[in-house]
């Protein structure tokens, strides 16, 4: 009872369907992220879902009020370490975050930027209050004691070092951005030089498929 032409048609339909599926998967995969352990979702940044970075923390905000990561559940958090005397990298990163929020349009308010100073001795709450919201009024600057900052950086596997060259203090620090999903899990590590458009894409992916 076989019908060779019908079987051929079925194979042809299956082939077209498979090709379409493959194309769809390829298009949605993005250009990077094919290496290393991942959660299966494709990002422009590095998928760190399986690396167990970060976790709950509480630091002081620009009004000396305690702020916990859990306060921002439901939002995607962009977390960066830095210091206000940073001439280039930190302002560039914060300006990029402001651009990401603009690119996201109506979804912009669902992104919370947290700028954690690794130089709390010089970065007072007042200085953070002057500095951080100048990039975007919703951005929050966080600080803490050295022990608190050390604990947070350690949990994110971030590093920093304050180097004093005869009174000329320079602060070396991790320049990547930690992208934390709406449930507080660190999902993506975005390199410093990743364009705002790609970071916005990744944020959107997390907002759409949390």
């Amino acid at each position, binding site marked *: 009872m076989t019908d060779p032409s019908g079987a051929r048609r079925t194979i042809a339909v299956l082939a077209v369907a498979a090709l379409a599926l493959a194309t769809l998967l390829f298009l949605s995969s993005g250009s990077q992220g094919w290496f290393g352990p991942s959660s299966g979702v494709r990002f422009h940044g590095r998928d760190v879902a399986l690396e167990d970075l970060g976790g709950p923390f509480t630091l002081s905000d620009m009004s000396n009020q305690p702020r916990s990561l859990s306060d921002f559940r439901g939002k995607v958090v962009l977390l960066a370490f830095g210091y206000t005397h940073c001439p*280039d990298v930190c*302002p560039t990163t914060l300006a990029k975050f402001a651009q990401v929020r603009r690119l996201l349009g109506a979804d912009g308010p669902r992104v919370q930027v947290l700028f954690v100073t690794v130089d709390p001795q010089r970065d007072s709450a*007042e*200085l953070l209050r*002057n500095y951080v919201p100048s990039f975007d009024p919703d951005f929050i600057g966080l600080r803490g004691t050295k022990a608190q900052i050390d604990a947070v950086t350690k949990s994110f596997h971030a*590093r920093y070092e304050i180097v004093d060259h005869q009174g*000329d203090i*320079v*602060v*070396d620090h991790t320049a990547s951005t930690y992208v934390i999903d709406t449930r507080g899990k660190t999902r993506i590590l975005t390199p410093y030089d990743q364009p705002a458009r790609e970071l916005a894409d990744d944020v959107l992916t997390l907002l759409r498929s949390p």
Partner: protein
Amino acid sequence: MAVPGVPVLALLVTFFLSTGATAGATAGEAAGLLTVRDAWVRATVEGQTGSGAFMQLTSREDARLIGASSRAAQRVEIHEMRMVNDMMTMRRIESLPLPAGTTVALDHDYHIMLIGLSKQLQPGQIVTLTLQVLDARGMRHAVDVVAPVRALNAAPGRSSPKHD
């Protein structure tokens, strides 16, 4: 500080060249040896005592940038920024080579660091810097740079970005 030994001819030549290439050029001072383009300083907020100055330098002959000063800051240094294993490191360097005819960008990898600012820098203000340049014959040149202050969140880099 005086500008020693800059031939008038060289000054004229540089003036001609820099006016001939006005597209995109912003405030900057050209001495005979050095052409400075797109100089700017990042604004600061109150309480912030350091900032960066950025510019494009093109020397007519092999030379080195060996220092800088400004009345706006107690100390002005040449800094090199590097990314080492995702860690941003910044160090003062003694000098920066300026090969003949090559535009050296002080925007990311290198910048001028202003330390101990006497007052807050606000967009629209002007910061005057003096660069110290050593030419291949061992002669020092002082080059004044007029750098407008741009917003704290100003995009770094060139007036005509690579990526756009």
